[in-house]
């Protein structure tokens, strides 16, 4: 058993999606601390706070008001203090173009919002497990791409 906590952030404007996600992540064996944000700007404001504890993994919805996921992704990758963060896109879009574009802009993981809770839980668990390996082993983060 490990005592380390994974800090996870989720930015999603849909309240139901946020709730389902929190429930899914709660039952997973990896211990996490989840921070929720209602839209991209809220997340970016948080990440730019002085002395903030940066999350180990950020889940980003693509379609959000005020600042969408793609804008956040670009901003994060252009910021020297944030560019090493691990980013998962969490979206309903399964268009190949969207997926490729997020990877090109520096996303590590692309998760299609699953249509049932069990699947969501499985997917989130796999992502956290994989992400954990990238945190604790000398795997190359530059080539970390995962689609699920």
């Amino acid at each position, binding site marked *: 058993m490990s005592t380390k906590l994974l800090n996870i952030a989720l930015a999603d404007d849909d309240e139901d999606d946020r709730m389902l996600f929190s429930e899914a992540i709660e039952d997973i064996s990896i211990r996490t601390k989840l921070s929720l944000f209602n839209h991209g700007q809220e997340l970016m404001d948080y990440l730019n706070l002085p002395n903030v504890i940066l999350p180990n993994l950020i889940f980003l919805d693509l379609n959000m008001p005020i600042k969408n996921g793609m804008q956040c992704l670009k901003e994060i990758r252009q910021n020297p203090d944030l560019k090493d963060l691990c980013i998962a896109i969490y979206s309903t879009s399964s268009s190949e173009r969207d997926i490729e574009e997020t*990877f090109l*802009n520096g996303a590590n993981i692309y998760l299609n919002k699953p249509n049932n809770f069990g699947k969501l839980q499985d997917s989130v668990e796999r992502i956290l497990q994989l992400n954990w390996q990238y945190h604790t082993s000398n795997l190359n983060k530059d*080539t970390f791409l995962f689609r699920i």
Partner: protein
Amino acid sequence: MILFVKYDFNKACETLLKEHLDAYDVSYTLGSLGEVRIKGSLSEEQRKSLAGSLKRYGIEILDDQKITLVERIKNAIDDLLKNKELKSVKVSSYLADTLNYSYPHLSSVFSESTYTSIENYIILRKVDFAKELICNTDLTLTEIAFQLNYSSVAHLSGQFKKTTGLTPSSFQRIMKKKMNYTVNPNT
């Protein structure tokens, strides 16, 4: 009669820890996430008696030996994958021989602290090597499969797809585009 109590879990544990640590003549600070920083060190005997007295509260002193062992297992796996002469060795016996522990012991320590199994870790590591070779060399997939000791290209592709969700060729396409993209993001 029924009494209802409200308790602060963290405070309870902290107080408990403090009470027990105060019995030893050491100065210490409590960090978050169950970290206890002790100035100087406890003797082996003190450590044992502290562990014993905490045990009945369900508090366990974690062994950093386990974490060190996990690192040694990972290093041994890297050596094994990189060294061509070791291609035909069986992983379980190689690890048991180099680290001097039985494989079941290694395997359980590894799974306990990494959320994955040795087998899965090896797959992940091999796919990571394959990615490196795809990005940085002109080797064909067949050559990469051979170099990483896969029985066939199909086997490598299958494991690659399972681990990354992408086929080796779409991975290669994305990485190539990504490199051009980063060099010149406006095109």
